[in-house]
């Protein structure tokens, strides 16, 4: 309990550093680019346009409101992949800082998740723009979005912490993880209907945390329906378990980082 309190007090003291790290990420990402911050809006829209053209002409799926169907899946999934991949590199990438100054190390993966959330915020706005254009109505269920985002953020943080820890000791994980995310993306019904996997392969949907989160989000945006207790509990538990596991593993190994980084 004592250690937990120390961690929390450390967090309060270093909240400014967290803020600075996130700002730095954003600044460096868009420095010297002409459109700058606009890219966070334009990128998802461009992606969606390409995918919609490809999939409505090449593969005919009977999905109502395909652009938003795709968008909801893409926005959440991209956030997760981006945040976890950046977290993976966050410790070794900050090696020079860690070796010279005392900083609570969990701030690095955490700042990557927060940067990802900033991007998610803009992607969400882009999604609302597309909803206006394609005529999908805004329902009050969308107001529950922050809750869903919280669940995903918990899961992403936990996973990011685990990946960051493993990366310090085994650099292979970077290559492995990029393949994992690719496969994961194809196994999640982002641009195809989930009916394709139901039936014999439906276990693949059940064990896929992103499927749960994306279905929840689609339920809010497309069906204007807030999922019931069961969905909320499962989404929360997945996030919570990963978050706790992530912090535990990170905490256990963090004193050795400086020797291997």
């Amino acid at each position: 309990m004592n250690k937990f309190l120390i961690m929390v007090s450390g967090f309060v003291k270093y909240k400014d550093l967290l803020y600075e790290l996130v700002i730095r990420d954003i600044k460096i990402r868009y420095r010297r680019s002409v459109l700058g911050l606009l890219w966070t809006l334009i990128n998802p829209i461009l992606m969606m346009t390409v995918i919609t053209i490809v999939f409505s002409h090449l593969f005919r799926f009977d999905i109502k409101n395909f652009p938003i169907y795709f968008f909801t899946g893409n926005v959440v999934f991209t956030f997760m992949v981006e945040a976890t991949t950046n977290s993976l590199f966050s410790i070794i990438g900050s090696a020079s800082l860690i070796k010279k100054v005392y900083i609570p190390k969990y701030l690095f993966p955490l700042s990557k998740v927060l940067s990802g959330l900033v991007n998610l915020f803009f992607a969400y706005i882009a999604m609302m723009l597309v909803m206006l254009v394609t005529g999908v109505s805004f329902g009050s269920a969308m107001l529950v979005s922050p809750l869903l985002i919280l669940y995903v953020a918990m899961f992403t943080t936990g996973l990011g912490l685990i990946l960051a820890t493993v990366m310090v000791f085994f650099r292979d994980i970077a290559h492995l993880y990029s393949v994992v995310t690719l496969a994961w993306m194809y196994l999640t019904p982002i641009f195809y209907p989930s009916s394709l996997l139901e039936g014999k392969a439906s276990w693949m949907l059940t064990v896929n945390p992103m499927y749960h989160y994306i279905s929840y989000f689609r339920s809010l945006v497309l069906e204007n329906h807030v999922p019931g207790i069961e969905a909320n509990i499962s989404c929360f538990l997945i996030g919570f378990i990963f978050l706790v596991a992530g912090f535990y593993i990170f905490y256990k190994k963090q004193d050795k980082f400086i020797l291997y980084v």
Partner: protein
Amino acid sequence: MNENIIEINNVSMMFNRSKEQVDNLKEYIIRIFKKNLFFEEFWALQNITFNIKKGESIGFVGLNGSGKSTLLKVIAQVMKPTKGEVKVYGSVAPLIELGAGFDLDLSARENIFLNGAVLGHSRNEMRKKFDSILDFAELWDFVDVPIKNYSSGMVARLGFAIATASSPDILIVDEVLGVGDFKFQKKCESRIGEIIKNGATVIFVSHSLEQVMELCQKAVWLKNGQMVMYGDVDEVCQQYKNC
């Protein structure tokens, strides 16, 4: 009121001096099969025990590789000692190596906020100190230039200015002053002197024994990771010079 502000208790630090670092799976598995998961122990510090009182200025002297920087990092809590413990009862501003906490792509202006945050200060606090930091570092002409374009002396000036701007309880200075010109050295010495007068504790590492004897009251002589002598700065430096 002269209580301990840093307590170093039987601290030992071990590093793995394995000739090849194993950081991928293939190597690891091969090594397990070959049964030589090579781990060669290197004790950078061995059983270091002493206390530093509040308001003292203490110098660390020793040959290269004797463990001075390692001991500083243990005190700054950058590293956890393999054995023993360090208790620190105040805020620490470490100047270990040039440009610690700097991001090379950002300008001096942005780095002041970032580095300030690394040391635990909010943006508002750093805004108030902004002018005095740049005045000390004499870098007004280069405020918005990315740090990667600075000379090493400029980086040292900026780093020192930021670290000393916030009146830390404990200031750790590790050989960074060696990079500056004599004007800079003089400025740093006088600022360190001011900080000491205001009651802060200073730990100073330098190969320039004159600087150590001038600024410090006590000194520690480290040799091969062990504490050979601890005491009055003149005595210790004399012994060290004659070794």
